[in-house]
């Protein structure tokens, strides 16, 4: 959610119970302005909050003028002092993906991960236990990166690609219409496109190059509950029962009209805690993550 319209956004996103206490709100309003000034960001987004056992991480992101350029991520424990997180590297991803469980709330906390490594000593091959220390900060970078890639979304038309290449905020965006707001195809992943290049010419034919330059949500797995479920549920013998899942229109997103169609709310089921809101026919949209920072691997069972 935009730091500048934080209060309205919080109000709109409050249907999921994810709020901020008044003192946090006030300090965010103050400190994010300063972040914007000091780091010279074009736009500052309040990204959300990762709940730790001891303390919570408040996350903000700074955007440059090109909206799709790599985003800078900052975190804070008290909403006042912000520290910059390094960008996620391959090595970090590989390390952190093994850590499970809740965040502690202490950036210097170290998770211990025991790994079996094969050590060749002459002719014999030993299996040796190696303890790998992973800092929580590294894991934080990893999780934020994962969430951003998977479920950060914006409505179609909110950004547009200029002829010169960079992506800008679309001033003429006036919100989705009601019928569009109910479809997953009207929302895009807020990241560089991955799937788009794999599309056939036929699929690309209807796309507007200045608007449809990102991946839309409708192709997320599990698409309609069936494709991903089948191989995994075969052991359960409940396949036939799950075939009608797509009737629920679920997949990895729950889409709801709240306040009598005045607000559309998308909740990610893959990363429970991510809420996207958009008031149709207005420019108010945004997303916020409030959760434990754990991926819901049980999704196929839960649908």
């Amino acid at each position: 959610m935009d730091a500048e319209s934080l209060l309205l956004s919080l109000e709109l996103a409050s249907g999921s119970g994810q709020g901020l206490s008044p003192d946090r709100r006030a300090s965010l309003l103050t400190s994010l302005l300063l972040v914007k000034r000091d780091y010279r960001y074009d736009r500052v987004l309040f990204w959300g909050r990762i709940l730790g056992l001891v303390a919570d991480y408040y996350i903000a992101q700074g955007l440059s003028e090109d909206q799709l350029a790599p985003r800078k991520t900052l975190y804070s424990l008290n909403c006042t002092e912000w520290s910059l997180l390094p960008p996620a590297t391959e090595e970090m991803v590989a390390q952190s993906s093994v850590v499970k469980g809740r965040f502690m709330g202490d950036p210097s906390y170290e998770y211990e991960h025991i790994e079996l490594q094969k050590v060749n000593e002459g002719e014999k091959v030993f299996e040796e236990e190696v303890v790998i220390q992973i800092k929580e900060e590294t894991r934080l970078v990893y999780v934020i990166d994962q969430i951003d890639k998977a479920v950060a979304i914006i409505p179609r038309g909110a950004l547009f690609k200029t002829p010169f290449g960079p992506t800008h905020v679309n001033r003429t965006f006036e919100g989705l219409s009601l019928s569009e707001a109910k479809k997953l195809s009207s929302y895009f992943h807020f990241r560089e496109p991955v799937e788009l290049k794999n599309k056939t010419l036929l699929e690309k034919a209807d796309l507007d190059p200045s608007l449809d330059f990102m991946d839309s949500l409708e192709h997320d797995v599990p698409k309609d509950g069936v494709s991903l479920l089948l191989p995994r549920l075969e052991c359960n013998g409940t396949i036939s029962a799950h075939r009608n899942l797509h009737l629920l229109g679920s997949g990895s997103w729950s889409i709801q009209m709240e306040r009598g169609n005045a607000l559309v709310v998308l909740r990610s089921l893959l990363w429970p805690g991510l809420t996207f809101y958009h008031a149709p026919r207005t420019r108010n949209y945004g997303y916020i993550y409030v959760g434990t920072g754990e991926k819901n691997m049980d999704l196929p069972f839960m649908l």
Partner: protein
Amino acid sequence: MEESTSPKQEKENQELGEARRSWDVKTAASPQYSEPASFEPLEAKQGLETGRQSRSSRYWSPQSGARTSLGGSAGPETSSPAPLSPRESSSTPSPLAPAIQDLGAPPQSDRTTSVIPEAGTPDPDPLEQSSDKRESTHHTNQSDGNTFQQSQQPHLCGPRAVSYKNANQKELRFDVFQEEDSNSDYDLHQPATGGSEVAPSMLETTVQNAKAYLLKTSSKSGLNLYDHLSNMLTKILDERPENAVDIIENISQDVKMAHFSKKFDALQNENEMLPTYEIAEKQKALFLQVHLEGVDQELEDEIVENALPNVMESAFYFEQAGVGLGTDETYRIFLALKQLTDTHPIQRCRFWGKILGLEMNYIVAEVEFREGEDEEEVEEEDVDEERDNRESEADEDEEDELPKSLYKAPQAIPKEESRTGANKYVYFVCNEPGRPWVKLPPVTPAQIVIARKIKKFFTGRLDAPIISYPPFPGNESNYLRAQIARISAGTHVSPLGFYQFGEEEGEEEEEVEGSQNSFEENPDFEGIQVIDLVETLSNWVHHVQHILSQGRCNWFNSVQKNEEEEEEEDEEKEEPDYIEQEVGPPLLTPISEDLEIQNIPPWTTRLSSNLIPQYAIAVLQSNLWPGAYAFSNGKKFENFYIGWGHKYSPDNYTPPVPPPVYQEYPSGPEITEMDDPGVEEEQAFRAAQEAVLLAAEENEETEEDEDEEDDYD
């Protein structure tokens, strides 16, 4: 002089100019002939001017035809200039010529004015109207020049200068658009003043050609570029966005889309906002004050006071903790709860929380009915049980030849009575405040046991089936009720000392178990320091009964019943679980004794504000049930749940293992058979029998011997 003439000019304009407006309008965007006239040397002959004018009019007439033909309704229009132009051209250069022309013009102009808006602008846009206006005013000035020429003023120089000045002054008042227009006029006429008269016409031709090209209608969309550009410019000037050049593509697209959408929507009734109105209508009922009159006022007040919780107050405290719904939604829920307490005989009511669903969410209210007013369902259940009994009896009646299935479904554990155990409270849910409240059915132990083994998203429809591996007995409303029971049992806590065990009431029925299951508010509760509540977990206690693995809060001894009926076979089969009474933590146990989840503490406590600790409240957060919160400011407390209704586990959900396969009957003497008797055996058998018979004969020596011998043969 200038002042005196200008009103006159205006009047003349209104007479003549009106008539000519249409004609002038057509000449709008191109070099005006009359203007250069003011630059012309004075010796220029009137005849020449009129000649030129007629030429220009002749020139323009095809243009007007071209323009009107855009609309397609130009049939009469195109013909009208034709008679006009010969007449003008043939007329002698006399002062009357313009007048004739003017007189001749009106019928044409009337028609053109009526046609042009339709033809030029398919949709009557503010743009086109305004530009028309601008053009017409502009040409009023220009026609000043005409008027002066045509009225043959003696001081040609003066009035012309005046008119020019006038025009200039007026133009200054007009906006940019027009200034550019007039400027371009002057630019175009610079060469005209310089020398030959052929040049302007060449220029004109080029310009006209360009314009004609711009006006070409696309056969595909029916638009032309000229109108489109002017629409775009108007939109830009109306809205004045910053950096318009950056978003010109979008503006162009918007203009085009607006053109189409308007046309197509004309016959459609816009009904897509209907659901909005529908829910607004329903929620309006919440805001209407209900006047309960006639009833004993004091009694009424008392009930309402007791029943309705102060939702807004707790919401305020939860907001300090960073939890809760938005202010307006909370208030709507508050009103919905008021509606609930007004329509049902409710003694105590509480806002339990909100459970998120895929399609809709559930708002849950926890209520306690007044004594003896909730007995509808008990009867239904009895009917069910009776039917079960009858079936089992019928089985026993038939005396069997073939063995029947000895398998009996595991002893169904009866559900707890309402007002006790897990059914202590009744839960009402609704999808949105304003929609009707639905009462959830009481929970059965089987449902709780199975609900522990599955993990499903709620859909938001109470009648949705729950499809899961251990088949869930019931639909979503039962699953929801089971999850509510589990969450309540796990996360409803209060500060130590707020509740105390009841004196007499509860113990009578539960004496067998020896535990106390009822509690009441402690009148002497003095409050606990907030800081103490934050620092140690032992200051918080559970005030909802623990649910045993049996699925009940109070132990149900299924073994006893079994022994009465079928003593002999069951004893060995019974699991130890059933023989020993299972005991969970008793009521009002501190939460510090809760089990850890793999090194993760089950609860987290916080102070709501570190900046102003003296007014902060203690916030308790469950890690086992993410979304369950409790606050206490020392005196007051409240519990609240918001989330998906699932338990936390650091590991992935694993489906329960399939039940063990039943072992076949062990091979033993009942299963195996001897070999068939052989000849030797039979002979030996016969010999043995004969021996026996012989012995018998010898003993008795009767006549029967012979008979028996016969038999053997």
